[in-house]
């Protein structure tokens, strides 16, 4: 970039050909390669990339928080024209918090659990020389009110565990903006939060930026969020900038092939629907009937109990996909776990393929596994780290009546091929596979015993967008070919819209709205459903590229 030097004068932050490497077992490997970008005052720049693209490393380097084995090899970071790349920790202390501050990724682990909210927010004033306790408390209360914390005086004396995730993130934002820094680095500030909360937090950051004129570097994997909020986008892949420019330019006219793929894969309410509606089957009996299902959790010693699922009913016709959507704590995971029989219902009836799940026990229950299978959210946790892929896929077959060795081998290869993995994967262990490949293995394991029904519990939520799109396509294809029935649990309405025939919206253990996906999404009857839909980032209508041209204010 020729303009970098000239820009550096006027820009708040300019990064020039920055290369960062990590040392591992004596080897040094670069994770950020000659990245250049700049941010002017009051601007929002989004750094977009998948996991492993080096975006967090880059963000950490800006405030001197690289891990011990990380090192800036070359390049410059100019903040207000001064190169801070080679600064030591002591010098960074003079600008951290006051000039540049950070909103960390996971609010759950970023607050000190043994100190009150008031003390933690007050600390930043104390560190920067505000000695008077009374005045400090005053400032803290103002600040908490400013970031939209309800009832600041109460929160002031509470501990982090008494606050929800969204509130904790507000507190962290309060700490970050306390001294009105010139630059706010928000490292995936909403990834750990529910969609509706996510929207409110991003709105807050937007408001604060307008009010204080703070520049924001938004680090995110979610192109939808970036497109909604940023003035400029920097697309990062494997530590290299693929493309950068104004949001409108990139969205309407992506020059790099990678950006185009990201755009196409990002689920939003505008992307084309993958799902072809299932043909009506002559079979009148639905695959799943749930009637008035209740599941309570009893709290250890006290008699108090909590209804995670509170009287839900739905039916899923054969060969179709039913989605359960809702925020965390809405009871959707409890519902599917009851459906596969890992949890016993407190009351209500579940019929799976004509079988009453409650009537099963012992051996009949084991045989029931061949009808219904569950695919887990996290493919890093759902595969035994000690087994090879071949062992993982053979195991379900060995659990039922003996199959001849050669036939077993054939079936394992067939399913592996079906989920799009090479046969060389058979001898490998899960740890040498990527997240997407692992999820393919998990799907193969579920399908190898030829179930009729597959429950997908947030099965694509832990994956990067491009991989997510591939897995969704796979799930779609498998349904068409094998006539599978799916129950798809997700918090992500954009994904649900792509693949579900019918949908139930859950809130606090109850179904508040249900029906065909298209109807529910285009004419939501409940405010809550509307709120969920509004919270989905990214363009809202088909032809996203044209409509996204509107320049964010």
């Amino acid at each position, binding site marked *: 970039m020729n303009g970098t030097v000239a820009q550096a004068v006027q820009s708040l932050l300019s990064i020039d050909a920055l290369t960062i490497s990590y040392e591992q077992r004596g080897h040094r490997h670069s994770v950020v390669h000659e990245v250049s970008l700049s941010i002017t005052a009051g601007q929002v720049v989004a750094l977009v990339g998948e996991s492993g693209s080096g975006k967090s490393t880059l963000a950490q380097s800006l405030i001197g928080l690289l891990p011990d084995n990380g090192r800036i090899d070359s390049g410059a970071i100019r903040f207000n024209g001064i190169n801070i790349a080679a600064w030591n920790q002591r010098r960074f202390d003079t600008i951290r918090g006051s000039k540049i501050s950070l909103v960390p990724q996971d609010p759950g682990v970023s607050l000190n659990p043994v100190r009150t909210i008031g003390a933690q927010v007050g600390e930043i004033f104390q560190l920067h020389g505000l000695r008077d306790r009374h005045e400090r408390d005053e400032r803290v209360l103002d600040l908490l009110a400013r970031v939209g914390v309800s009832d600041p005086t109460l929160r002031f004396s509470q501990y982090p565990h008494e606050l929800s995730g969204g509130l904790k993130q507000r507190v962290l934002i309060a700490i970050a903006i306390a001294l009105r820094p010139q630059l706010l680095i928000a490292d995936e500030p909403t990834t750990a939060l529910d969609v509706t909360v996510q929207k409110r937090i991003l709105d807050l950051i937007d408001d604060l930026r307008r009010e204080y004129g703070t520049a924001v570097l938004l680090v995110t994997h979610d192109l939808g969020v970036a497109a909604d909020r940023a003035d400029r986008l920097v697309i990062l892949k494997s530590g290299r900038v693929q493309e950068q420019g104004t949001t409108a330019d990139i969205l309407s006219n992506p020059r790099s092939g990678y950006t185009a793929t990201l755009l196409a894969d990002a689920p939003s309410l505008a992307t084309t629907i993958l799902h072809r509606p299932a043909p009506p089957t002559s079979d009148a009996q639905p695959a799943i009937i749930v009637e008035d299902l209740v599941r309570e959790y009893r709290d250890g010693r006290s008699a108090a109990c909590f209804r995670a699922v509170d009287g839900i009913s739905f039916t899923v016709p054969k060969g179709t996909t039913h989605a359960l959507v809702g925020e965390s704590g809405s009871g959707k995971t409890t519902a599917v776990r009851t459906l*596969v029989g*890992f949890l016993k219902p407190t009351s209500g009836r579940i019929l799976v393929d004509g079988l009453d799940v409650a009537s099963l026990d012992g051996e009949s229950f*084991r*045989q029931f*596994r*061949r009808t219904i*299978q*569950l695919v*887990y959210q*996290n493919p890093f*946790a*759902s*595969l*035994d*780290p*000690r087994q090879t892929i071949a062992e993982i896929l053979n*195991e*379900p077959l060995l*659990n*039922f009546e003996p199959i001849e060795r050669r036939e077993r081998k054939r079936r394992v290869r067939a399913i592996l091929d079906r989920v799009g993995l090479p046969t060389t994967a058979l001898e490998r262990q899960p740890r040498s596979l990527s997240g997407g490949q692992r999820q393919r293995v*998990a799907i193969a*394991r*579920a399908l190898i*015993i030829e179930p009729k029904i597959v429950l997908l519990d947030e099965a694509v939520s832990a994956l990067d967008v491009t991989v997510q799109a591939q897995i969704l396509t796979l799930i779609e294809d498998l349904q068409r070919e094998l006539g599978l029935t799916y129950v798809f649990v997700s918090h992500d309405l954009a994904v649900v819209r792509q693949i579900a025939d019918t949908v139930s919206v859950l809130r606090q253990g109850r179904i508040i709205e249900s029906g065909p996906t298209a109807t529910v999404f285009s004419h939501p009857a409940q405010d809550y459903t509307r709120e969920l839909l509004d919270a989905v980032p990214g363009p809202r209508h088909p032809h996203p590229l044209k409509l996204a041209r509107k320049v964010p204010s």
Partner: protein
Amino acid sequence: MPPGLVLSWVVIAIAVSWAMAPHWFTDYSGTIGLSGQQRLPPSATHFFGTDELGRDMLARIIYGSVHSLSGAFVAVSLGLLAGTLLGLIAGSSRPWIDDLLMRFVDILLSIPPLLLALSIIIVLGFGTINAAIAVGVASVARFARLARAEVIRVRHSDYVEAASGSGGRYLSVLWRHVLPNSLSSVIALAALQFGTAILAIATLGFLGYGAPPPTPEWGLLIAEGRRYISTAWWITFFPGLAIVLVVLATNRISQSLRGRSA
């Protein structure tokens, strides 16, 4: 491999080869003394000196290694097998069985290990193997505790649920998934316990509860030499050094095992 770890493996390799083929490493006998050569200080003919009966100390240590190592091996195997089994049952059974087994383990833990080992020897009778069994029983509780915690952690993981979800029978899931995944830290404890067991067996030998004289068991060597400590320091020093080096080496190896499993 870091140099300290290499050194540890070298120490263990030497101790093990001494135990397997002591006569390759020394021409002297471990039990029969040479007249006129009592309490000689370390020299070119006797590297570690001789004791009060004219026995070569290096030969005594070399011939004694089999007692310490096999004793520790028996003790650790017993603790590992019994403890892991107990932990596996406790961690995977109904709450009342778990409670029952764990209260038993609590009782075992509340008795000082040496006292427990001494009581067991009094019941079983004296001897190298009995001392080893006593030390093993005293370590069962630690293994059981750790194994149970690991089993409970692994049992609640997604892949174990997925295994029973794909039709696995209870016992086969336990055997195929829960046990192998719980073992890595238990094995690291076993390596650590190996050092502790050598020390405990030497302690019992020193107190006279282990192998009877003239067995050249390391603890007994120290006990016999302590009468001459002011005039012939080498009789206690070299067996002590052998114990320290072997225990340090097993601790270092255990640490590396734990690091790998984490």
